[in-house]
């Protein structure tokens, strides 16, 4: 009888699950389709993570090192799950490198992808160079360490964050009605960082309502305004255009507090992207026949379990952003929780 646990995905949740299983000496195989561990924060070069304001490597490097050091965890990069037959605890899985394994339990941690803002053509991303995503802003910080307008390389005088791009948006149909959970807080942090480094840049945040959860309220909502002078305007941006007369962008919205439409010139606009299940998550859902939310397509846990990490399919556990928008701290916790549940599951069948 197999004793091995398969962890699919080497991002925060998968790393955390593998690390926990490794610590407990459980034979574990971690498959990651990219050639690097760390998931989106490492692959995409995030600059600073909320809420602790640490870099991705500060947070994730200890996990990566411990997983790589562990004698019971086998890491397989550039590898994907191809098929899975049988039932727990006797899954027979096939990997993209041709290897076949006998697996007792599976932890799915296949994560999310950023909303593609080109679906909101009215926001002009990809048409006007000075419309960028919050991911590109992170990369500007982490790769180049400076803020500039992509059209001319100059420091913007005035810039805006547009919240909820691809989130809470019924215009996009049923797939994108959920909140991304991280956007308000990260924008508060990014806006504060900009104001701290470049006090001459005017920064505006355009929001529907600000959702800085729990203890995030002060550092990512009040502090940006009170300490750094970031200006918050309630109004959803309807459209972004460009004026040839001054070479600046125009953002159009209705300020729903003062109740009037406005059109404001901006040098740089940052789109705060929503989260969607990754292609990997959708693919794994098909291979393992996992329950998905009919609208968002995120994976959903077994309702009767009361747990957030137990899937409706016996022996399959789900953790992190494959089951909906989540922050990195919580992803790490869910990885640990899924590892323990997997352990309990195989523990009932085999002697560890």
């Amino acid at each position, binding site marked *: 009888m197999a004793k091995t646990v398969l962890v699919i995905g080497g991002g925060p949740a998968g790393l955390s699950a593998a690390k926990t299983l490794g610590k407990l000496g459980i034979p574990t195989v971690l498959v990651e389709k990219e050639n690097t561990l760390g998931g989106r924060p490492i692959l995409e070069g995030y600059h600073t993570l909320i809420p602790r304001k640490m870099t991705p490597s500060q947070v994730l490097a200890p996990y990566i090192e411990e997983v790589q050091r562990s004698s019971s965890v086998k890491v397989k990069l550039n590898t994907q799950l191809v098929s899975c037959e049988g039932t727990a605890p006797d899954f027979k899985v096939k990997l993209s490198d041709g290897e076949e394994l006998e697996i007792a339990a599976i932890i799915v941690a296949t994560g999310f992808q950023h909303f*593609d803002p*080109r*679906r*909101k*053509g*009215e926001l*002009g*991303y*990809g*048409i*006007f*160079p000075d*419309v*960028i995503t919050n991911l*590109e802003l992170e*990369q*500007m910080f982490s*790769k180049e360490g400076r803020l*500039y*307008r*992509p*059209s*001319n*390389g100059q420091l913007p005088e005035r810039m805006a964050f547009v919240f909820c791009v691809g989130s809470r948006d019924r*215009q*996009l*149909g*049923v*797939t994108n009605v959920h909140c991304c959970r991280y956007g308000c807080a990260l924008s508060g942090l990014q806006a504060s960082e900009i104001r701290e480094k470049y006090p001459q840049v005017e920064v505006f945040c355009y929001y529907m309502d600000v959702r800085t959860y729990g203890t995030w309220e002060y550092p990512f909502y009040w502090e940006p305004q009170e300490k750094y002078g970031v200006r918050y305007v309630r109004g959803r941006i*309807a*459209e972004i*255009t*460009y*004026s*040839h007369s001054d070479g600046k962008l*125009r953002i159009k919205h209705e300020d729903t507090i003062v109740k009037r439409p406005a059109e404001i010139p901006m040098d740089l606009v940052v789109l705060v992207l929503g989260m969607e299940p990754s292609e990997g998550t*959708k693919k794994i859902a098909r291979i393992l026949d996992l329950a998905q939310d*009919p*609208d968002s*397509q995120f994976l959903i846990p077994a309702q009767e379990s009361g747990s957030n990490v137990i899937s409706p399919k016996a022996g399959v556990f789900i953790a992190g952003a494959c089951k909906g928008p989540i922050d990195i701290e919580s992803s790490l916790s869910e990885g640990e929780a899924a590892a323990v549940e997997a352990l309990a599951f195989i523990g009932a069948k085999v002697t560890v």
Partner: protein
Amino acid sequence: MGHAKSPYLKYADPIPFPVINRHSHYDHLFEEMYELEEKGEILVYRITEENKPVEVLTRTGRIKTIPTTKIWHHKSCGQCGNIPGYPASVFWFMNKFGYDYMNEPHQTSCTAWNYHGSGTSNPVALAAVWLRNMHQAWKTGYYPLIHCGTSFGSYKETREQLIFNRELREAVKPILKKLGRLTEDGRIVIPQEIVHYSEWVHANRYKIKELYEKEGKAKGIDVSNVRVAIHGACHVWKMMADDYPYDPEVYGGQRPAASTAVMKAIGAQVVDYSTWYDCCGFGFRHILTEREFTRSFAIQRKLKVIAEEIKADVIITHDTGCTTTFEKNQWIGKAHGMYHPVAVMSDVMFSALACGAHPFKVVQLYWNCSNYEPLLEKMGIKNWKELKKEWEETVKHISELEKQGKYEELMEFFKKYDLYEPYSKTSDGFRRKRSATADMPLFRS
């Protein structure tokens, strides 16, 4: 791509957009539709090889199938009433391309006037009307092509409501049964795709280009200097934006491709302007309830911007309401000292002109109140005055024939023109239209 233009920002090189066959909620809608068919609730009226379909990409990456021939024309109240050159141009192209179609007299209005403006109808009635018309198309074996943007938008939205709501299906079925508009085994007929005429134009843009090269240019027509402002209609794409053609070559696949792509195909200069995304001012009920809003919006936000910012020669539309709004408000603006003259016409009308269609007998520009003459000059249709005279003489001739009661001769006369005729062209040849109006003596009223 905008970022590709930047010498500074060189990050992720995105794959072309739309991303082909990316799973989206729209696929979900179609999956549900076919599931309903499997359960025996509905019959999906399919586009077949007989329709010589062309595939286009939608915003979500879904492949949409556009039939090109064996077409059932679902015409527009506003077009037939106010801009008859609009449907006539569609028919003209169909005749030129040798496509088979049925000019259906048994079609009703979609009743979505102003797109459900302020409770003019309700979901059950709207669904019943849509399904009644689709059933009629199915009976004929010709595939429905929706001319009107309002009908197209309403039908797309109604389809989504119908597929996802059993209550609506249950409410509409007894009505359809009473009307005899279910299949023999009691199923609702839903077309595989809801197709707008602008999608048909889009799917035929290379054929249009060929015709322009062959016949338009031979007449000295050249559109390469014509500055074109595209106005996309809310009802056509903005309200249900996913189910409409997008193309990586048109604004990076982020703005609707129909109308823009055909203009580009024939070589006109498509010019971007800052209020491209704004409504024409027609609104959803504004034209009925807040007409001054419509007027000021159309004049200040669109006509003025298009005239001053980019000095366009023509506004290209793909819907009934937008065309009339841009047209009539120029005349109104003139009366109030806010005159921003620019020609207005639909993509298919402009394309027909470019391909050499008669500006008055086919495109019927005499119905336009916008300043179309400078556009004709710029397109190289320098003899438009003679053409207008020719049309006036033709009208006189028709009138004479009618006075003399020579209807057979009239019919023969119409055959000479690639015009909307009192006949239906079917795969079996010409067939006289069987409608109340078709049997009336022509032009008597």
